[in-house]
């Protein structure tokens, strides 16, 4: 039985199609609004961003326990991995920045790749007994 359905009404009142989004003047203070999508914190605040359609069924004891452990530890694991990645990138940035800055004024006699901190620190003395390749 085919039932009628209501066509989409273009507007509540008469008048041309479309939506009057330009009822506001286009000013610099609002020029990039359309690059952002408003998130409805009420309707979407607690809705998963992406529902995994292929959620694996808990078809074994092992998986059940794995799920329980994951549910309890996921926040901790996520925070820790985020923090460790941020810390590693920060360490890389610091060393890389200092190396580039130091290259502008001089070089390390032992290994031109090293920045001043690494070149002058006594840590390198212990390591320098290792093979050159390892040091590089």
């Amino acid at each position: 039985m085919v039932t009628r359905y209501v066509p989409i009404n273009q507007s509540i009142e008469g008048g041309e199609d479309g939506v009057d989004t330009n009822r506001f003047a286009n000013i610099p203070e609002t020029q990039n609004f359309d690059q952002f999508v408003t998130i409805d914190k009420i309707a979407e605040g607690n809705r998963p961003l992406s529902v995994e359609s292929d959620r694996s069924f808990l078809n074994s004891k092992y998986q059940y326990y794995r799920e329980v452990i994951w549910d309890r530890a996921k926040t901790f694991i996520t925070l820790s991995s985020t923090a460790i990645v941020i810390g590693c990138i920060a360490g890389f940035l610091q060393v890389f920045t200092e190396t580039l800055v130091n290259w502008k004024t001089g070089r390390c006699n032992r290994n031109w790749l090293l920045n001043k901190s690494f070149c002058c620190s006594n840590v390198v003395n212990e390591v320098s007994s290792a093979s050159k390749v390892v040091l590089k």
Partner: protein
Amino acid sequence: RQEFECEAQGVWINWNGRVSPFMIFMLLSVLFASISTLLVKYVAPMATGSGISEIKVWVSGFEYNKDFLGFLTLVVKSVALPLAISSGLSVGKEGPSVHYATCCGYLLTKWLLRDTLTYSTQYEYLTAASGAGVAVAFGAPIGGVLFGLEEIASANRFNSSTLWKSYYVALVAITTLKYIDPFRNGRVILFNVTYDRDWKVQEIPIFIILGVFGGLYGKYISKWNISFIHFRKMYLSAWPVQEVIFLATLTAFISYFNEFLKLDMTESMGILFHECVKNDNTSTFGHRLCQLDENTHALEFLKIFTSLCFATVIRALLVVVSYGARIPAGIFVPSMAVGATFGRAVSLLVERFISGPAVITPGAYAFLGAAATLSGITNLTLTVVVIMFELTGAFMYIIPVMIVVAITRIILSTSGISGGIADQMIMVNGFPYLEDEQEDEILEKYTAEQVMSSKLITINETIYLSELESFLYDSASDFSVHGFPITRDEDKFEKEKKCIGYVLKRHLTSKVMMQSVNSAKAQTTLVYFNKTNDDLGHRENCIGFKDIMNSSPITVKPQVPMSLLFRMFKELGCKTIIVEESGISRGLITAKDVLRFERMKYREIHGAKFTYNEALDRRCWSVINFIITIFSPNRNDNII
């Protein structure tokens, strides 16, 4: 001392000669800047700038382009940032650090929590990650946590879960950094100072002067920077790479001849903050800044003093033209460097003409100057005080820092500056951001009826799938709306309709895409939003979309004042409010509509928030253009 020994033993060799050090310095500066800007321009355009404004807006509930927090942006930001900083440009790493840290938070939460992550928890992780970005940039964990709460999440309601996440991420990130030990001295804080001489009450007028400098710095540097960004948009947008290369060349050339500009900003601040002598009068720091005493010749004194003043002025001007160029760029550390040179210059004057030697701690004035300008440019208070202590450990100076920051804040608020550079950039770039409405009651005088959109695209509660698909995918009907009111079937031919719910376009699109119904069947497949199967007579092919419909959208009367609507959007975090009169839908208002209206009215009443000197811009451009035509290879000779 260790560095001197290292050089004396020939372990570290400085470039020597007359010309080659200069040439190497210039070439490497330009090379690093070129690679950085080319990476940003051709590989990840979203990696440019600081990123704090966009992250603030994102966390406040307006989602930006997903590439902005994507993996490619993370990689390019992490590689181009060191290149930009080492090129000598007056840019800092804290804003970009916030950006790459938030990228990490976004990518890892999307991967690890993919099927349980919601927007509200995602905001918590993004705020925590952004705070960790500042923590590792400054080596200040608690300062990073406070930054995340005071700056990034200022538009959101404070909750202890975000605080805990920020605390934990900052802790682990700093510990990781400590383990890596990038400075090879076992420390993560940038400079360790031991001010063991207490400050005196007679110094408070000087602290006030430093605070006033910080406020004026924040006011004028952000103003000039915004003007230059306008000039850049008008005239230089076609040559971003050339602009960065020119800036790097100019900066390297100027900086080479001034010790406080040539050094890396954190290194120069380490020198300026350093205390000269310990209490037992054994000189611990052999820098020429500490060799000055009452017997120093006036010429020598004048030389160092002018060198510091020159560094202050030039660095401030370089910040104005560098921040916003096509490279990853922060403004906090350069601002601190300006404050540090200014504070140190003031300490020379105080020691020479007021207190005499061994009374004040000169390095502390540089430290207070840096705190003043950092607070001036960010408009932050608590965060700045805590970061300064975590940077240096100078707890004895907690009251002077608070005095300086308080004076800075007073100067800013009395001169009408309502936010830091990040907040101002939100307005300059035209980003949506629901923070506190403007002081005067602009919105009080208007009602919802005057602002609402009364021409709506509604969808009735039962509709054929084919109709819905053609409507959603048909490009002709691609309106700039992101949601539709659902109206009752009974009202289908009525002029006035009752709204029974609201559905977001992206939910509708993803739900329709999940239906594996062929086009023939789609003609007879009925989609219903609110009815039950009984109402539909237990038909076979019908699909319920009830789960994606918001069956209780927020509604208001047409007479509701806009100021109340503003607060509803801000406090409730909703996206759309339906305007109803005795149950009949009259129109619809979105959060962006309220912001558009407010900013439009503000502009009508008070004029533009940021005014530019077009005549001066044109004159500058004519000079630049003249120079370009002289040096450009394809100029036609008859001009000469």
